[in-house]
């Protein structure tokens, strides 16, 4: 059960407001018993990583600052201080429960390449069957870039290669490839993985869908996918929230303040960070969310796994079993007035 969090703000935020202080921050999510849904892997203890783009213009070229560790995030003193003393307007954070690859810093997300930063929540099923094909497909420079052994990092290398073939130079230190190029490259990457795994499937064992929640940024635009190679199963959870400011209403408890239509603060996360249900909206399964400047765009991923019917109920059993389904946290006082039904698998039958 990996979790990731993306923050993009008009103004910089102190990292502790995202990572350490909120009662339901992703660091705290990794040990909070109430939320331990994954019966196989109780905790996200296989390391963590934070990438943030510095405020200082002089430093804000050729990649974000990165802090990774293989110790459980909640025990890391350095993270505690760092988060308290650092501000940024673009943050990628990830806590990991390994699915592929050994426990090592090189296997921790996010991955960066010059100004590009990447995270993955999910897994490519039967990755070992398509790995050779992927390696043959990409240019040497991206093949040699891979240091770890995870499916995620290879997916990143494939993305870089796709972006390159799209006509952008991933080595560009300022990033800024534009939202169309980033989104198209990510969609193409997903398409490759989808097609290859489908072709490699022999039919001997039961079909296991790939969960491809990818997050990518070039330092200015953010593109996040929520995708599964199945027409009937739910993808790993993904929510977004936006508003004027992210405020601490009481110690550890935060809410998204929405005074107007401005999206000065935008967060995308596997699991909501606050106790206010109304603050969070689920990203639809098999779609891609783009943050262009401070505006959210949403595009469907239309292929053989797309569901036309907006009310089609996907099964959440698979993702729940694999620990990729986050819940909306319950606040102390339950408001009676009715957020609508949600079919993100958080609803039980009568």
């Amino acid at each position: 059960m990996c979790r990731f969090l993306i923050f993009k703000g008009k103004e910089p935020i102190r990292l502790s407001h995202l990572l350490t202080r909120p009662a339901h921050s992703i660091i705290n999510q990794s040990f909070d018993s109430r939320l331990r849904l994954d019966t196989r892997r109780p905790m996200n203890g296989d390391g963590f990583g934070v990438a943030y783009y510095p405020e200082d213009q002089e430093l804000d070229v050729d990649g974000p600052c990165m802090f990774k560790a293989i110790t459980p995030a909640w025990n890391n003193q350095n993270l505690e201080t760092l988060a308290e003393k650092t501000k940024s307007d673009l943050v990628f954070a990830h806590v990991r429960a390994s699915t592929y690859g050994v426990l090592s810093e090189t296997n921790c997300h996010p991955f960066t390449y010059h100004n590009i930063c990447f995270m993955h929540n999910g897994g490519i099923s039967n990755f070992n069957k398509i790995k050779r094909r992927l390696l043959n497909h990409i240019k040497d420079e991206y093949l040699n870039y891979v240091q770890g052994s995870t499916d995620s990092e290879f997916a990143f290398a494939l993305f870089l290669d796709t972006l390159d073939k799209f006509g952008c130079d991933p080595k560009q230190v300022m990033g800024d490839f534009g939202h169309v190029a980033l989104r198209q490259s990510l969609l193409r990457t997903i398409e490759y993985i989808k097609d290859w795994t489908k072709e490699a499937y022999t039919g001997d064992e039961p079909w296991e869908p790939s969960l491809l929640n990818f997050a990518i940024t070039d330092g200015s635009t953010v593109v996040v996918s929520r995708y599964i190679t199945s027409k009937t199963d739910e993808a790993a959870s993904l929510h977004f929230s936006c508003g004027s400011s992210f405020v601490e209403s009481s110690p550890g408890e935060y809410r998204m303040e929405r005074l107007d239509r401005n999206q000065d603060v935008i967060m995308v996360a596997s699991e909501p960070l606050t106790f206010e249900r109304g603050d969070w909206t689920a990203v639809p399964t098999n779609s891609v969310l783009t943050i262009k400047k401070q505006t959210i765009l949403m595009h469907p991923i239309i292929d053989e796994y797309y569901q036309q019917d907006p009310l089609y109920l996907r099964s959440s059993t698979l993702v729940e079993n694999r620990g990729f389904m986050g819940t909306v946290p319950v606040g102390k006082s339950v408001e009676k007035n009715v957020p609508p039904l949600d079919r993100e698998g958080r609803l039980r039958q009568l």
Partner: protein
Amino acid sequence: MSDSLELVHKWSHTYSILSTCAFPHKKLLFAGTQDSKILVFDTVTYNLIKILHLGQSIEVNTRSSVLCLDKSKDENSLFSAGADSLVRIWSIGEVTNTVDTDVEVNELVTIYSVTDIGDIFSIRFIDSLETLVFGCQNASLLYLDNVFKRLKGVLSSAESNANRLPHRRYNKFFDSNGPTGSASPFLPMESSIEKLSLDENLEILTNTILEIPSNNIVNYAHNGFIYSICELDSQFKDLLESDCSGCPPVKDATICEYIITGSGDGTTKIWVFVGDENNDVALYFCKMLDCEDSVLSQDVEFPFLYCGLGDGAVKIWDLSTNQSVSTLSTPVKSDIISLSVYNDCIYAANESGITLFQKGEVELINTHQGKILSSGIFERIGPNGKVYPNLLTGGNDGSLTLWNLSCLACGKDLNLTHLEENWSDSKQTQKVNTENMLNTLKDLTAFETVSQVTDGTSFGLSSRRCATYLQQLFATLGASQSRLLPISDSLNPAIVATFTGNEKNNDKRRILWYGHYDVIHPGDRDRWNTDPSILTCENGYMKGRGVSDNKGPLVSAIHSVAMLHKQNKLENDVVFLIEGNEEIGSPGFAEVCKKYKNIIGEQIDWIMLSNSTWVDTVHPCLNYGLRGVINARVTVYSDVPDSHSGVNGGILQEPTTDIIRIISKLQNDDDSIRIPNFYDNVKDIDQEELIRFSEISEMAEMEKNGSTEELIKNWTKPSLSLTTLCTSGPGNITVIPRSASIGMSIRLVPGQSVDSVKENLQQYVKDCFEKLSSSNHLKVKILNVAEPWLGDPKNDAYQILKEEITKAWNMQPLFVREGGSIPCIRTLERIFEAPAVQIPCGQSTDNCHLYNENLRIKNFSNMAEILYNVINRL
């Protein structure tokens, strides 16, 4: 504060006012707040008379901001929606004034969707289809049709089962699975659920819930949050219908309603709701307009759609042609959160206050409300029955302010009602109704349709309003087809309209009337005796820009044909083709004629126009010849920069000297033109014309150029005029200019070919320059050209016109030619393969293009009468 906004009243609340809605007839105002309330004010005593709480919760919560409000036209219902993803319908009773003002408000129904739609940013109620449509954070557009019919139907169905109330669903929903995957115990149902009670008047259950059906959800209607929904006034639907014919059901639908959505993805989309006789309602996508930046707010004042964008710009679209007309910028580059338009005045709200765009002026008004989050304009009915336009603004400091729009521009409304009333009074025997004609011309004059100035946006907007006015006018007068034809590069559109003649006439002619609605800039208004944009009638004359060129003659033609049509006496088909760029050389007009030839007519018999004046003030004229024109500029420039005559004089080969040497070779000392082969096909005038000219010279009381010789020279001989001379540099007497240019205007006569003269000119100038063996460079640029035109004064049309003019004026018309040029006349003749006939309308003293343009009313009405008689005889 400002003169433009006059404070009426200001209310304060603790939380932001996010949305407003006015009920002018009930004299109520509603304001949606950030803390889940709807405040109700009355505009008689200015009191807060009621607070509506969303849901039954007493505790203050800040989660269900009321982001949008709308009402039904009858003011019996209020619709609210917001951050809780729910839509609520409130019934608004009659206002009672016994002790305190009060009004009964009941929550009728809560509408929800089972998809996770996020915040609802925009809502609109379509009265004719009882359809509620709303735009959401997840980029989807949802609608519920036949809302009240559904509500009444709910009574007998199982839908009112308390188990299906959102409260119950809510508990289940938040009750997530525990670590073992098992369900936690079911939470007991809240006892506070209200008993179901009946509202007797409406026979509708209170607190009903309705779910949005699956096929009423348009997923990814946009790719961003849907911030605004506008409804298009049904009055103008026909304009869009031809456009949206891509949607097959539109053709045979009972009701069509258009909505326009604006989104954070930078686009605006037009959709159509189609309802049939079984009350089935469906939504179809029509077209998309790309605004490039987030569309946060919109308003429509037909034909324009105003979009408030994320970068502080207001983008204006012409919906009748789908062209982007103009982009206005607010002084502060921040989001335009709210936008209202009234009579062409734009009130754009962003964090700095309200920016008012009015007649090309920009004024920033600080309203002292923090940041304005909502605004709306409504017409308040005063105690004397008078209508006062009011602006209502809500701020993030909790203030709600009501303003009088005291200083309003007298923008022109598309109001043709007075015409319809008078029109039906017209008697069967009447040939012209001058009063009606004057009213139309008055409307047309008020549009300042200057086509030369491209940077002044108010002229562009006026021109488009004028085009739409004409389109509507033709439709009102009974034209079978009336539509706008867009011209490329966002130039003013053309209008085509057809009056169909008697169906039984087997020998029908098709007549094309050409006119233009654009005018020359009025110039310095102080030099006018009257306001050029207001039609002023004095001493038998009408005054104002465009009355003679060309709006007056155009109105005469329109009304004469429309009158025949109205009286069922029209024998021939008459097509009006009116353009808006004549004064700048009719760019794009030929292309439009070719492209829409099937609409204008494959088979045209006569082309008629009235785009000039008599040669004097007494004698009616018929014009059968115009000269052509080539306007060109010759430039000589050097590689050396501007230099000093003392330092460099005598050393340099100077561009000025070069150009004078070249130009001096264009004409001999007797003014004859030396361009090779220039006179090859110029014929001497024949005896008949000579007699005609000498008659004119004798009879006409021309102020100047009146001798026969002068007429021959001016009307039948080519000429070359050097019109501009310019040099680079500061103009100091000791500076040798780096470059020098001379402009020339060559008038051509029938027989001369524009193309060969053009080529010979360029070659000749080049040859002259080469002979100088100068180190400088030469550039020859042809600016614009028009072919000469010569009609046949003996053809049927001219003869019939001669007879009718003689009857109307009691004297024979003079057959004249002119020294000027009208570029499109040959274009039309060639494209439609029909002869053109040109009928001058006003007198030589009309002052076209000058100050104090005027037209004698007698000429105006006689023109209409002549045409009334001529049209059927052709």
